[in-house]
């Protein structure tokens, strides 16, 4: 600490006087500023007239629509940064060839939060206040969405189809502006429990799960779903996303004598667990792989011969799956990806996911009576069997006053040869298990 040269000599009295002067000035400024009052948080984006009078029309006109999305483009979860590429390709295609969404040219602004909640809050505010977007179309991850949904509720901005399967988006009743999209983890767990009850009613289950909201939600859902049955969890092991490998956990699980292995992991760890299961030759359980890691891109590096008979469940079409090669929507998707997002590999399932969710948004806005924020909110909470071609046949979007989960149907599948084979019927988890409640 160098002493300021100019003030060294003036002594204590001088310092005191100056201090008082400064604080007096600051106080004065503060009071004048406060006299002007705070600021009302109302939006200055304008309101609709006519039948939808008084509703917010920020970010939407008769010919344009501005949306904002928040994804991890940097940091450890960057793999999910591929999703907006699929969304962009879809919107570009619709803008150029279909005259836009409902006649409106869509502008989709993507921001990076690095999977950090404080950054997500900042970006949400930037999109809403500075970019003046009509809605937040997807925030990715449970932490980032949790950190922002109070804000979107407060500002009455739709936060539509968030990219996380946490069950709270649907069970909560304080945040009407936020809604999920993909089947929630608890429902997915119920599908596996159901499958086991039919196939292996006395199953002894070993579980590997990611030690975060995703892994916990799915595991807890599974525990609840097997209550009262003879299915037992004999051992559970967790891993951290920062762990280099799950091999040690897999050896422990192998020693548990379980005959079912529930693999609740994200892609990289999914591959590691599949490889470890293949390597441990004296342990051959029924391997249930959760949907997050069920892409063919996870199985392929392990070697197809090592993953025969693995089961999972899904709700949208995997572009790597040959059975969709001649599917009209898949062909369109491949075509338009090549055209509008030439650098991106259409085989990446995250791109197809983005395509599917963008289609869902398109249909939701089309169905809205009022093309306003309120109109979108009401529409996303009142979907009636909306078909989205990128979803599996028979999987539709439905919501209602007591149903905050757009997609609740899944189908079991089994890996055979080089592809997933869908097995059984599409399971509507709401119909089969009843609504999620606490």
């Amino acid at each position: 600490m160098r002493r300021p040269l100019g003030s060294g000599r003036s002594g204590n009295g001088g310092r005191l006087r100056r201090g008082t002067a400064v604080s007096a000035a600051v106080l004065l400024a503060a009071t004048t500023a406060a006299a002007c009052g705070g600021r009302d948080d109302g939006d200055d984006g304008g309101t609709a007239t006519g039948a939808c009078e008084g509703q917010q029309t920020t970010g939407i006109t008769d010919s344009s629509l501005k949306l904002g999305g928040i994804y991890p483009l940097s940091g450890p979860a960057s793999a999910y940064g591929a999703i907006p590429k699929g969304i962009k390709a879809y919107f570009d295609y619709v803008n150029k060839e279909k005259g836009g969404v409902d006649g409106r040219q869509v502008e989709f602004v993507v921001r990076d939060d690095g999977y950090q909640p404080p950054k997500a809050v900042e970006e949400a505010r930037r999109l809403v206040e500075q970019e003046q977007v009509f809605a937040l179309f997807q925030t990715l991850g449970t932490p980032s969405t949790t950190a922002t949904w109070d804000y979107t509720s407060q500002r009455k901005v739709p936060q539509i189809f968030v990219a996380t399967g946490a069950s709270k988006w649907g069970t909560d009743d304080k945040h009407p502006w936020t809604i999920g999209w993909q089947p929630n983890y608890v429902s997915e767990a119920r599908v596996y429990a159901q499958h086991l009850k039919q196939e292996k009613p006395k199953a002894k289950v070993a579980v590997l799960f990611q030690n975060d909201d995703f892994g916990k939600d799915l595991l807890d859902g599974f525990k609840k779903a097997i209550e009262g049955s003879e299915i037992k969890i004999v051992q559970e092991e967790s891993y951290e996303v920062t762990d280099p490998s799950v091999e040690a956990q897999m050896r422990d699980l192998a020693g548990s004598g379980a005959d079912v292995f529930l693999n609740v992991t994200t892609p990289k760890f999914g591959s590691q667990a599949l490889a470890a299961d293949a390597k441990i030759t004296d342990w051959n359980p029924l391997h249930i792989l959760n949907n997050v890691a069920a892409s063919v891109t996870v199985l392929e590096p392990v070697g197809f011969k090592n993953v025969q008979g693995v089961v999972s469940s899904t709700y949208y079409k995997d572009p790597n799956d040959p059975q969709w090669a001649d599917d009209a929507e898949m062909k369109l998707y491949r075509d338009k990806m090549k055209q509008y997002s030439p650098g991106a590999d259409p085989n990446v399932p995250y791109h197809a996911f983005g395509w599917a969710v963008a289609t869902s948004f398109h249909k939701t806005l089309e169905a809205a009576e009022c093309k306003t924020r309120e109109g979108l909110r009401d529409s996303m909470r009142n979907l009636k069997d909306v078909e989205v071609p990128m979803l599996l046949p028979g999987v539709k979007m439905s919501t209602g006053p007591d149903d905050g989960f757009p997609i609740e149907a899944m189908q079991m599948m089994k890996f055979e040869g080089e592809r997933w084979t869908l097995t059984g019927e599409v399971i509507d988890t709401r119909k089969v298990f009843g609504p999620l409640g606490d």
Partner: protein
Amino acid sequence: MADFVQQFVGGLGAGAIYASLALALVLIYQFTGIVNFAQGELAMFATYIAWTFIDAGLPFWLALVLTLAISFVGGMLIERVIIRPVEGAPELTLVIVTVGLFIFVNAAAGWIWSFLIKDFPNPFPGGALQAGGVSLAYSTLGVLAVVGGVMGLLYLMFRYTKIGLGMRAVATNPESARLVGIRVGWTLAFGWGLAALVGAVSGVLVAPLLFLEPNMMGGVLIYAFAAATLGGFDSPLGAVVGGLIVGVAETLAGSYVDFIGSDLKIGVPLAIILGVLLLRPQGLFGRAVVERA
């Protein structure tokens, strides 16, 4: 008992992975006196280069040789281009430059090769050695053998070659080294090149086991730091022994101590490091530095 031995062997396998990267860390520390946060990322990047060659149809061993050569030259270039301008700056400035390099290389790899996992061929045969209910995978044996070999070569180089001597002189006192005619700049560059090469070996060893993706080495780096700290930052032997101890300790603690479990097992290397450093601040195999006032 077989279970225990099996876990022990598994711990050795994990430890060999940590040791392989720890060797590169020790090497760069020996040459330059700094901790290189980007070491793991450089190894990951080199592995991607190898993957690209193999994907293009080159035989594994040719791809490996090419990759090692590129890594060596690349490491030297990084020293000349990126580290050189801040050579005289405070130590922390250098460390932060490597942090910047870490972020840059990680993002660049994701940009070039995407974040999807890649399958990397295993140079060692599949299958395992079976004895008394315990199986020891050939790949684990292979990794251990290579790590041991690299360690031996480094030891010989440090001890018996002129470059090793020069390197030690530069690390201890760059000014005096310059006075006795050692080309300090090139010695530093050589150190970076060599560390990048050893890192590339580590990446190629690790990739078949962990699967190749841009964050592959992030988790390993922490354990490698632990290994190097435990063994002493100036000893290749220490890095390997440290790596094995860390690997075995965390595996066994995760499996057999219920309170620790698999979620808190990372606390085990932490406890070991803290314990060792309090009793023996220079690490197990490090030399104590006597300070002149």
